[in-house]
């Protein structure tokens, strides 16, 4: 499993989604600085989520003759449904604030895409 590559790609993806949604509300020079700086907390969040919630599925449930693809095919649906429910709950409880909406949409899409990248690693 190539975790550093996955975390790197996921961080970029998360940054793009998060700021694209936020820039639809207000584009200003002040936010551009924040957008660049946000790479650090986004990297930390992405790393933690991937290492704590996705990697253990592959570490503990993967057997010698099972590919990443097979693991993802079996467990991804349950993971993503739970993640969707949590993100939806987050959006509802945050009373539709744009920052919260962009955060939860970013979490949902990034985690899903992260699974896809892990599944596409050609290892048996």
């Amino acid at each position, binding site marked *: 499993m190539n975790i550093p590559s996955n975390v790197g790609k996921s961080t970029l993806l998360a940054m793009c989604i998060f700021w*694209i949604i936020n*820039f*639809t509300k207000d*584009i200003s020079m002040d936010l551009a600085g924040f*957008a660049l700086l946000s790479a650090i907390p986004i990297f930390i969040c992405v790393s933690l989520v991937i290492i704590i919630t996705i990697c253990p599925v592959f570490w503990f449930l993967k057997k010698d003759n099972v590919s990443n693809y097979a693991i993802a095919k079996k467990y991804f*649906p349950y993971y993503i449904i739970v993640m*969707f429910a949590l993100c939806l709950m987050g959006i509802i409880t945050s009373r539709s604030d744009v920052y919260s909406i962009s955060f939860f949409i970013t979490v949902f899409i990034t985690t*899903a895409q992260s*699974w896809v990248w892990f599944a596409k690693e050609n290892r048996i």
Partner: protein
Amino acid sequence: MKQAIIILSSLLFSTLFYSQNIGLNLSIFSILTLIVLLISNTNKFKNKATIIYALLYLVTAAIVFFQHTTLSIITNCVVFFTLIGSITEAKSSIFVNWLNGVYTTVAGFFHRSFHFNEKEAKPILKKDIDFLHWIKLIGIPLVFIIVFILLYKNGNSVFNDLISQINLKFINMQWILFSVLGYFLFSNIINPVEVEHATKLDLETGNSLSKGTIFSEEDLKKEKQLGTTLMLLLNVLIVFYLVTDIIAISTSATSNAETLSNQVHNGINALIASIVIAIVIILYFFRGNLNFYKDNKALKILAFTWIILNAVLVILIAFKNNIYVSSFGFTYKRVGVYIYLLLTFIGLVTTFIKVLKVKNLLFLFRVNTQIAFVILMLCSTINWDYQITHYNINYAQSVDLSYLINLSNNNASLLKTYNDKNTLGSKNYNRINNKHTNFIQLLEDRSWQEYTYENLKETNNSKTHNY
């Protein structure tokens, strides 16, 4: 062709839902979804179950327009997931349909990315357009150009002036993002996917129990003895409880709301515990080979008796709730008690059938989820706020007006009529009038996407008054 349908649907999705409340838009969306599914999955609509779910989806879309209750909106969403799941695999159980429906709706796009990986090794005869490449080609330079424009703006006043003259305010970025959401949704559902593991397991598992390979007569005898003793004692206990309960009901003529409320709620709590434990115990003893043990007749009779006695307990609680409702009217909690009692009664009947016909746990789950779905459908056809208000003001011995005023606007016209015909206190009179005025204002402020049947009714009323 598919891409054109998805793009058109996503634009319609934005037009219907962007900055709008639920109303006519959800009904139109349901029809649009059905058309999209019909075009892209024509073969799947030859199945009887799928056709039924499609019709139910249309019915719930109409109910949303006519009733406009939260329950009708929830039911519409549940039927939407069921329909999508049914298109994925028509033969699977309803709860697997829900799982497949939710999975398709939220992650169909990502699922297909997995399958792309599986097919990578196979020769590709016709290469599709590489959307990811095009997104990168346009998106990445665009993001960097915007970032650098924002940076350069502060460095050069002429450049800043030129950039400031560009006015892109006519573009609503949030509307565009909403369309992207619509695109994501329609691209997910246009080609439904399945949770393979769960669907396969469901299709492979039947409803009947089969005899296990290890069949120890000695162990089964011990288990039967334990079960018989336990069931016998529980039967004695529940008979004692029922007798005392009947005596309590027949001797006390309670008119106090608090006492009645306590009686019903305590009864419900006892019922919840009793039924859950009853079903768990029955399922434990009849989980395997005890079903095929030749001397299990006594245990089965005791289990049936216990189920019947629990059903009597349900009827007693319903009777108490009935007294409560006829005195103090309906509330959502009291309606909820009736629905809970109905579900419990059905649960007991299906447990009875499970033991009688030697069915497995999955049978119980399949049948109960299907019945829950039907009850949800039936409940969504009722405008509860209106019906609760109608019953309380016409038949209840005492009316809690404050409770009725706090319900949704679905009862505003009814309360207004009641207010006009009766002499109420000034506080309630004003509150009802305010509620009605706000409701009429709300109807007038609605855009066409938010229209409901109430809009048509009010338009007709105002025309009648004008004449």
